[in-house]
């Protein structure tokens, strides 16, 4: 009854004040679309950089004196570490093959060697590259690790490169997250701004309503619902645009570069986002605007 009346009022008002409705809807649409694209780029940037980061490794060289038991025990220890994503054992032979390969055409140098002086090693890939130092430290005093006395040169990490790539991606991600947060705040500001403006333009109407005995909530509800509708319509528009962009543009990139591992956003989440984001933004926008222009 009353609810239906308020909804009717809101819809009527949207239609009657269509210039302002369109303006508000465009604002919601544009802001949310930009925000969505920003978040999308950010998430995929994260995927892409985590691909780069997973290449960073720790190498643990093992003394030639270590027994096979000790070696496999160390392997088990490493596998048991929660930070570790995967471990790869490089035997003496494997190490020699790699060296041979890297010397390309000058393998004769190696043929001159008496036996194989290269140590076996474990290559460790971590889940989170920022933990490299912590994990590496655990091997510094391990007796079977091929450290020279007083050093821990038997444990090698990506070192400078790692640090640098890490830092770059780290700051790109921080920057990206900050930027997306900035976009979100900007969207809220712009949207509530527009709704406030469109309510401000109707303040005389509100005044008349008050004078003929409407309670504050009787005036407020239609405005709030109008805000909710505006938010929903704008957000739906943003979703449609977003899906279009995703289909025609992003899918193409993903096909070209599968390694980027770009995620397309599932429609379900988009829908949720729209209902919550759009509706909330709209109602908050009008709610805030009304608080200012609805004294008494």
């Amino acid at each position: 009854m009353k609810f239906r009346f308020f909804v009717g009022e809101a819809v009527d008002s949207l239609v009657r004040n269509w210039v302002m409705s369109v303006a508000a809807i465009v604002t919601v649409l544009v802001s949310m679309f930009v925000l969505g694209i920003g978040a999308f780029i950010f998430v995929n940037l994260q995927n892409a950089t985590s691909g780069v980061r997973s290449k960073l490794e720790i190498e643990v060289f093992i003394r030639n004196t270590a027994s096979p038991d000790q070696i496999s025990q160390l392997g088990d220890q490493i596998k048991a570490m929660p930070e570790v994503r995967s471990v790869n054992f490089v035997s003496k032979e494997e190490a020699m093959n790699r060296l041979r390969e890297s010397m390309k055409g000058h393998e004769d140098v190696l043929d001159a060697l008496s036996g194989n002086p290269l140590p076996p090693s474990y290559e460790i890939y971590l889940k989170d590259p920022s933990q490299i130092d912590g994990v590496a430290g655990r091997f510094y005093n391990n007796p079977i690790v091929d450290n020279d006395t007083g050093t821990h040169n038997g444990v090698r990490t990506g070192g400078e490169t790692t640090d640098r790539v890490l830092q770059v991606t780290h700051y790109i991600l921080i920057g990206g997250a900050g930027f997306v947060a900035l976009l979100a705040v900007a969207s809220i500001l712009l949207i509530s701004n527009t709704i406030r403006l469109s309510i401000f333009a109707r303040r005389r109407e509100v005044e008349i309503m008050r004078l003929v005995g409407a309670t504050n909530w009787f005036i407020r509800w239609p405005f709030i619902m109008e805000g909710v509708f505006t938010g929903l319509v704008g957000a739906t528009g943003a979703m449609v645009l977003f899906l279009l962009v995703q289909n025609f543009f992003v899918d193409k990139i993903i096909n070209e570069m599968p390694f980027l591992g770009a995620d397309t956003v599932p429609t379900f989440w988009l829908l949720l986002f729209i209902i919550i984001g759009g509706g909330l933004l709209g109602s908050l926008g009008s709610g805030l605007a009304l608080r200012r222009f609805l004294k008494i």
Partner: protein
Amino acid sequence: MIRFENVSKVYDPNIVGLKDVSVQIERGEFAFLVGHSGSGKSTFIRLLLKEFEPTKGSITVAGRNLGRMRRAAVPHHRRNIGCVFQDFKLLPNRSVAENVAYSLRVTGQPPRSIRRKVPEILQLVGLGEKMSNLPDELSAGEQQRVSVARAFVNHPSLLVADEPTGNLDPDTSVGIMQLLYRINRTGTTVLMATHDREMVDKMRKRVIALEEGSVIRDEDKGLYR
């Protein structure tokens, strides 16, 4: 019904709206409020509606002191006063019928009775055929009559009209006056600010005359001057 006790209203910066006005209007009375342009008639009416507070003095309407009225009670207070505004105050984006219906809706009347009452009252003021027009599409006199219809439709116990015939030709004015008179006869208190000398002189009702915010004359069965 209405009691003003030593009411003054001074607008910013220092413009006198009303000056020490004490007036009492009984339930069921019919009173004219007359005076020069700018003498404080609209100020008097706006104070009744609690559009703003008096600078001094106390106002009682229907037994309730406006100065002590809670905010939340103001809408209810206003619903009990039908008001014809001097500048009509119609909602610009709603049809004539919706404008009238709005003041029924705020009281929570069921849609069915709204659908019955609105055409009835618009017929009464001669706007049966303009129900679905917007205010902008009406002549000034027609807008004024919509404002009159809106004030009546609630059957308020107090009817206040600020110059309700200012934009009406003499014939239509007489029609509206007869309506006001009939409404008054059913027990409704009527207060009407007007410049219509002819009308006041013909009706011979109570006349309260303002001049620069003060009551200079208050007589039963009075004349415009």
